[in-house]
């Protein structure tokens, strides 16, 4: 079965090309809109470093024996990763659905898994750029080590995949922009702020300390903190493990939606 006049390529090759094109398209969108997709989050993280770390840090000095301005850097990186991975995919998917141009890749020979990976790539790329940008700009103001670079890199990538998947899920279910804003502002942002970005959970009293253990973003922040500082509130195995498990569940949910055509087919 071939298109007339075209060279005969295997379905696998054709789908691989489709996936490469969709990935490129999602990356292009992130890079073309860099003033909206990359810069604001890096500026926001920098302001947090300057205001909380440097200005207020003089009052707080140290947390768990770590200078405060160092302590908050990994959390800020992860906060940017999870919020922007989510926002990217929720927006991209919903816009493509509401404007109708998602029909172009959906009517192509690509399988659901190719569509899913292609769409996830945008959120992952955006998150990685924000993480690298935040680390680089924070370095201008704060001296910090990166004790476990592999743990940090793995945490960023795993969290980026998981929250891109969550954004995709919301983008597929959404019937209006307000649902994405609600999820971002009322669920993800609060979980990020309460996930120990600015404080150690050891400073919390009960029941807040126990409740924090139910916050999945706490584990991602803790894993990133271990990657940067070489120490964190919980074991790196637990924090990386929970982050991976949460991302795996979100990814599986996302795959089921693509497989069933939720938001893509009627």
């Amino acid at each position, binding site marked *: *079965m*071939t*298109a*007339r*006049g*075209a*060279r005969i*390529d295997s*379905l696998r*090759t*054709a*789908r691989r*090309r*489709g996936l*490469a*094109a*969709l990935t*490129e*398209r999602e990356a*292009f*969108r992130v890079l*073309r*809109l860099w003033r909206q997709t990359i810069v604001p989050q890096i500026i926001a993280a920098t302001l947090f470093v300057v205001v909380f770390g440097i200005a207020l840090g003089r009052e707080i000095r140290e947390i768990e024996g770590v200078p405060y301005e160092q302590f908050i850097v990994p959390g800020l990186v992860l906060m940017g990763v999870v919020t922007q991975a989510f926002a990217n995919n929720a927006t991209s998917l919903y816009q*493509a659905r509401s*404007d*109708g*141009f998602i*029909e*172009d*890749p*959906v*009517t*192509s*020979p*690509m*399988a*659901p898994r190719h569509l899913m990976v292609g769409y996830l790539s945008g959120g992952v790329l955006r998150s990685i750029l924000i993480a690298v940008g935040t680390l680089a700009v924070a370095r201008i103001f704060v001296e910090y080590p990166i004790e476990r670079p592999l743990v940090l890199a793995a945490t960023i990538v795993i969290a980026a995949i998981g929250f891109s998947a969550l954004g995709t899920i919301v983008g597929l279910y959404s019937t209006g922009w307000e649902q994405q804003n609600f999820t971002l502002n009322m669920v993800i942002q609060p979980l990020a702020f309460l996930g120990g970005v600015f404080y150690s959970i050891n400073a919390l009293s009960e029941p807040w300390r126990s409740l924090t253990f139910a916050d999945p973003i706490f584990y991602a922040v803790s894993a990133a903190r271990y990657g940067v500082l070489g120490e964190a509130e919980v074991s790196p195995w637990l924090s990386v493990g929970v982050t991976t498990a949460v991302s795996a569940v979100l990814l599986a949910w996302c795959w089921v939606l693509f*497989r069933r*055509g939720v938001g*893509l*087919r*009627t």
Partner: protein
Amino acid sequence: MSADARAAESTPALRCRGVHKRFPHDVIALDGLDLEVPAGSFFGLLGPNGAGKTTLIRSVVGLNEPDAGEIAVFGHNALGPGGAPTRRIVGYAPQEIALDKFVQVQQLLELHGRYFGLERRDARDRAAEMLEQFDLTNKARAYANRLSGGMRRRLLLARALLHRPRLVILDEPTAGVDIELRQDLWSYIRRLHADGTTILLTTHYLDEADELCEQVAFIRDGRIAAEGEPDQLRERFGAPRLEDVYLQLVGR
């Protein structure tokens, strides 16, 4: 002619058997529809709004999932995730103009070609060729949302044809298009058909269908009410024009 070639020639471009699609609130869009579009034909699917034309077309390209029935394109299943490979040989220009506004026109066409399995260089060459065919070369670097309505309609058609499909489905391609552009579009589609591409067209312009289509089918309430060559149908219904056949069959 070899046995394989004879089989390929006799396999219909599109075969629908007992296709049923019910939407929420008990809206039956397709009610056990049967249809066969011969390979290489210029086929018109005619009917009023809500008759099921677009639902059927969207089922063929994988945007609707029928509740029951079979759809095959050149003998290959076109339904469900297993039908995805079949879409390599189908080109689809939807009724609604929906074009990616984040990429430039040339890039939009190249991406489409690659979604459908063309290699990068082939997609680039083919995009340039289609831009020239549809007189859009000077808009290659523009964004689709900055184009006029007529240009967007041409771009939509260029996109549908870019990956060299064997079956091209055009859902009201000339709706809201001026006469000059309509003539241009039809002259290109005619050439394409002359080269052996099967065309499935839906339109509300019955004179257009009468002039272009070798066969037509009238759809009413999700079923085919009648089908055949325009001349045969006029004779069978004792009607001077296809429009009169339409009014007898599906008019309200």
